[in-house]
């Protein structure tokens, strides 16, 4: 196992970083927080740069980069907080279409993604749980397609995405459908990080025609959903850990600069040890993130377990780094004017969405055979 970037990987990373610094500076994040800006232009510029095509297979008009490239982009999104439709479109919508969809529907929507014509997202979670088991929304065959009923929680960009992959349960198992957002009853929520806009979606009998069915309800769909989820989970884990790394870097820098009692606070041993602890937490989560990214890139059988390892570690990391990062900044980090809180809030959102640390540790308990028997079949 080689867990260090090759030269080409490092080049891609630098490229992405430089572009994001230009099109999504922190001032844009602040503008969105303060209601004086939006992220439309970020996506438009990414489209111009052909980013939506990056990880779409070449067969569908994409550039065919693998998941490692996806993770490299996700890391930079988390570091910079760059807002916009990329994360949901490329790491949630597209993988769902690719893993679940049949040939025609896959071609239709992946080509549209690659061309930058649509943005998308994934509506899966119910009751705060991002697992196939949690899906209670129903898919019923009707004249002209499938009727969807039920409710989907916390859909990232559910209020703005063009297309929404909805996972619902039919008699034979899970099914998945691509629904135009305009046909859904969307309830946008006011959340702590407005650059990660979240909406609840009510499925009130919306009818999906056959050409928008990714997969009719069936026993084989669950595994495909799980594979798509793995990608979304790892991308978010890598992004969240990167957000934590930035909090750590800001805190480290502050500790070197800020003086109290005539010396930099970073020279106080108790703070030094806490910074070492934060660093350790970031490195722990980061190394697991890359491991998980590799398992997906190489379609290793450990991919599902690795996804939970990475997301759990990212969640554990933010718990420490958000708390100590804010605490060690003192009063200044508590003010709206300082940028720190944008990263703090993003890190929290990154833990919550797609299952927090506790949820992924529970999944690991299940895969390791440590959960109670009734759990295994829950």
């Amino acid at each position, binding site marked *: 196992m080689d867990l260090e970037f090759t030269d080409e990987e490092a080049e891609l990373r630098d490229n992405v970083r430089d572009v994001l610094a230009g099109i999504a500076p922190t001032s844009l994040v602040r503008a969105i927080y303060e209601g004086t800006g939006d992220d439309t232009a970020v996506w438009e510029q990414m489209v111009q740069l052909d980013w939506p095509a990056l990880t779409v297979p070449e067969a569908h008009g994409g550039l065919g980069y693998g998941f490692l490239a996806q993770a490299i982009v996700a890391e930079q999104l988390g570091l910079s907080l760059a807002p916009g439709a990329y994360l949901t479109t490329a790491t949630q919508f597209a993988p769902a279409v690719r893993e679940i969809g049949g040939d025609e529907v896959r071609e239709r929507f992946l080509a549209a993604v690659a061309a930058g014509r649509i943005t998308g997202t994934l509506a899966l979670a119910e009751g*705060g749980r991002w697992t196939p088991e949690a899906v209670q929304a129903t898919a019923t065959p009707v004249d002209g397609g499938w009727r969807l009923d039920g409710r989907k929680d916390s859909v990232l960009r559910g209020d703005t995405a063009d297309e929404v992959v909805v996972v619902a349960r039919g008699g034979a198992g899970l099914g998945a459908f691509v629904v135009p957002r305009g046909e859904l009853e969307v309830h946008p929520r*006011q959340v702590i*990080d407005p650059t990660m806009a979240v909406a609840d979606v009510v499925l009130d009998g919306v009818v999906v025609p056959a050409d928008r069915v990714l997969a009719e309800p069936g026993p084989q769909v669950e595994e495909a959903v799980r594979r798509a989820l793995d990608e979304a989970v790892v991308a978010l884990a890598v992004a969240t850990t990167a957000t934590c790394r930035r909090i750590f870097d800001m805190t480290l820098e502050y500790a070197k600069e800020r003086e109290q009692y005539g010396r930099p606070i970073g020279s106080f041993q*108790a703070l030094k040890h806490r910074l070492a602890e934060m660093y350790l937490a970031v490195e722990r989560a980061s190394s697991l993130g890359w491991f998980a990214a590799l398992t997906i890139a190489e379609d290793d059988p450990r991919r599902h377990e690795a996804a939970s390892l990475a997301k759990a570690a990212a969640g554990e990391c933010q718990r420490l780094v958000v708390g100590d990062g804010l605490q060690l900044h003192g009063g200044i980090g508590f003010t709206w004017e300082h940028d720190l*809180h944008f990263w*703090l809030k993003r890190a929290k959102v990154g833990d919550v969405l797609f299952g927090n640390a506790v949820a992924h540790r*529970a999944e690991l308990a299940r895969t390791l055979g440590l959960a109670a028997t009734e759990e295994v079949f829950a």
Partner: protein
Amino acid sequence: MKLTFDDSVEAFRREFLDWLADNRPTDAEMAADPALSSAHLPAWAKAWTRRMFDAGWLVPSWPKELGGRDAGPVETLVYLEELTKAHIPRTTNPQGLGIVAPSILDYGSPEQIERYAMPILRGERAACLGMSEPGAGSDLAALSTRAVLDGDHFVVNGQKVWTSGANYAEFCFLFCRTDPSAPKHKGISVVLVDMDTPGITVRPLPEIVHPDKPDLNEVFFTDVVVPAENLVGQMNNGWAMANGSLAHERGMVWLNGVLMLEESMVKLLAEAPEALDRLPAQERAVAADQLVTSYIDSVAARCLGYRGFAKLVRGGSAPEQALMKAFSSEAGQRMAMRAAELMGDRSLDLGHDQAVAMGMGITSWMERYFGTFGGTISAGSSEIQRNIIAEKVLGLPRS
């Protein structure tokens, strides 16, 4: 040791509860006109302070003419507990009632008491406390805001920061340097400055939650003219006063931390069952275990506080007191974090709309979590508290 209070204390409690039932502000009037900062006095708050003052329930341990009834410390404890249980703020200007007024009563001239202290006690005026400065943090001795005596007035220049309530306060209990040549802590004095004096600029510092309701401020003083008679006590006696002011009600400060922690726990225990029911068994058990750990903290905080309080009442020193600030603020932080985690995807929602009477408006656990850093950072951060415990309580050598 015993669990219960003496009968006389219970009689005191009943007397207060009876009075409270007839005189408390209603939930409706509090909700209709919430306090907007820690020095804002809505109409109901003014009337409520006045009723307490008149009935001798404002500061029970003080004499009748100052709004009290010469009550003992145990009675004061019971009084504060009952107010909290009833969800009624004792004041919406805590630093005015808790620090500024008593300091003026202790050190001020009769005129100052009449013009500044008594109006606070009667709910007529609100005050802020000008201590922290950009370069001085919690190190008061390093302050550099200057007051230069020029005949019958001082001229004040400088800057304060983290000044709670300065955006609403009517006057400021201002620490400033009056003798730059003296050793650092010997050249500090206190003057009373009306906030509408020309030359004062207040710049609110919105916080990371509820930026629309700022309480902290930067305050800039440019050639601000303050009458010489507004000097509190002696020239260059500010250091003693700082230790005096901050020590007011010292024996009771822990209680607020404990009551807030218990209050949060009650709220959490009420909300937990529904949230737990959303979770599969494995996650549910882990979340429940976390909540129980916070529950242990909340009971422990009360026991620790009571133990220290018992020692103080006996006249001894109480090392537990040094722990209480760090322990209760950090326990509250952990509790809010765990509660937010328990709430899962619902923890992301802002809770603005459900603002409560105290004007805090922090009703989502995530916002509450971020808000708790006010408690672990200000008034001596948790790190400083640990230094104090290590050096003053445990006798470890200075670093």
